[in-house]
């Protein structure tokens, strides 16, 4: 159970510097901790608390509010089936039942080999492609039981399902974001037409 490693401490400091107040970096740093350890550990919560200047209990409170943060290990692939209205109307409940049969686990369960965790998700903003699923937050729309099986088969074989790369659970975007200016003048209004 780990604190952030030296590389991630550097990344954390970069993230904190984007905000006027360090505490705003809380959610991004929790994502960073989850990428490192697969879930949010107590040590990581304590470390984030130090980095952003709050009590560990506050980090715990935030981390348990948001559903993407996991507090125990999940599978390499988090398979989420949306069952909200638009998806339900087009067979999402039946798709979820199929997913439980196919993976041999109930909602919330992880396959014995640690490959897949099945989740029932709330509206994923893909209602025009209902029913939809996400694997590690990558979308697959208009999913039939046959297509579901194809996605699982591809992931099991280590290939990209339907040509879409799906990095392991917790992987953050690798886009390098710009560094905001630390110039104090930026806190004041600017006039370019005098």
């Amino acid at each position, binding site marked *: 159970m780990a604190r952030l490693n030296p590389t991630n401490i550097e990344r954390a400091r970069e993230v904190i510097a*984007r*905000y*006027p*107040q360090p*505490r*705003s*970096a*809380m*959610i*991004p740093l*929790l*994502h960073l901790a989850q990428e490192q350890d697969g879930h949010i550990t107590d040590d990581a919560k304590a470390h984030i608390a130090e980095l*952003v200047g*709050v009590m560990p209990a*506050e980090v715990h*409170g*935030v981390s348990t*509010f*948001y*559903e*993407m*943060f996991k507090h125990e290990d999940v599978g390499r692939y988090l398979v989420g089936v949306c*069952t*909200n*209205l*638009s998806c*339900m*109307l*087009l067979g999402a*409940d039946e798709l*979820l*039942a199929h997913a439980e049969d196919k993976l041999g686990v109930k909602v919330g369960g992880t396959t014995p080999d640690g490959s897949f965790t099945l989740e029932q*998700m*709330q*509206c*994923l*903003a*893909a*209602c*025009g*492609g*209902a029913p939809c699923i*996400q694997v*590690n*937050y*990558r*979308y697959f729309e208009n999913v039939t039981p046959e297509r579901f099986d194809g996605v699982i088969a591809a992931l099991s074989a280590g290939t990209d399902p339907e040509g879409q790369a799906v990095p392991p659970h917790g992987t953050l*975007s690798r*886009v*390098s*974001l*710009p560094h*905001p*200016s630390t110039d104090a003048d*930026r*806190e*004041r*209004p*600017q006039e*370019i037409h005098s």
Partner: protein
Amino acid sequence: MTATARTSVVFARMGDPEAHQLDRYVATDGYEALRRALAMTPEQVHETVTTAQLTGRGGAGFGTGQKWSLLANTYPRYVVINGDESEPGTFKDRQIMERDPHQVIEGALITAYAVRATRVFLYVRGEMALAQERVGQALADAYAKGYAGDNILGSGWSMDVVLHWGAGAYVVGEETALLESLEGKRAFPRIKPPYFPAAKGLYQQPTVVNNVETVATIPWIIRNSGETYAALGAGRAPGTRIMCLSGHVNRPGNYEVEAANITFRDLLFDPSLGGGIRNGNQLKAFIPGGGSAPWFFEDQLDLPLDPGPVGAEGSMLGSGAVVVMDDTTCAVRAAWNLVRFYAHESCGQCTPCREGGSWLEKIMFRIEAGEGRLEDLDLLLDVGDTIAPGPFPHASWPEKGLAASPFPYKMTTICFVGPSAVVPMHSALTRFREEFVEHINHRGCPKGSAHR
């Protein structure tokens, strides 16, 4: 319906699969509006958006220019873009962020210039991995080419834009909850007053919170003038808006339309839009503005997509999400599905929502599962009344002696999540009471079992 039903303002680049690339964006008028805005004064830019009569596309429909004019005269002040789209049935902001992210950044920068903001935050929903990557890459490219950051386009004006991620919570869509979340806290909506973040927002400083679609509209307005935009469509909210059409239609999808020029019948049945109900089935009900909007029925099909008449008839256009249910749909199951969503997404701050929402869900489920009792129907209304007391809005039903009650409702909660759990229960129970009774008398759902 009119020949101009589909008009591309926000969706102008949707035909180009590479529109998210900076060079493609710049080749199609991209960042031209920012250049023009910087040649104007902030007041002139603000006036242009006010003239356009642009209204917020996140759900509440507040005038954008009016919202900007409420800012308290202190600094620092912030612009926060709400990209936490998660209202059931709504899927437009994700498409805009994934496929035309520069348009969002350009609109956000123009907004920041107009309101003299000191920093911009883009709050993108945590579950949208591709949108985060696309917006992040667009932002990095915009900085590299001088469209964001220091001395933008050589104007002497500088603005930083910070990309922020969520982590899964519907309530973040409520603007004060979003600000709490951006401050690194649990997303608890703030007690009102103050009613507007324009007075006290992020870090208690003046803040404009605008939806993704709203700001994505602004570059077009600057390039074409406020008058030109206001001349599109009609009614109380002119211009175009993106309608998210889903459920039992032949052609689900996002359609940008001059909304007030068309009716729900056009949207559902026109061959270039919804294309009719699947399998030639009959319409049973439709939701006109996202999961928290009271349901409409056949009788409302000829209403225009205009907030005025839609509100008078007991519902709202909200986030522009229209969910269509055909006559094979079990009203109890559909309503329970929505109640379950709002119960699940209650932040737990207000007792009527935290307790009431989950009781509504449990009672609805036992009716659907065949374990309901006739007393449950009054109990549902009673629980609903503790969350949203008094007359509840519903569409007119003259045959049963019911006149339409206008939207909105009274509420005992800080935000709209609690009453939103009452909405589907109340709509379904008012209109399809006999289906509830049938479930209870026959000990189960005539259309099949429910999953929990």
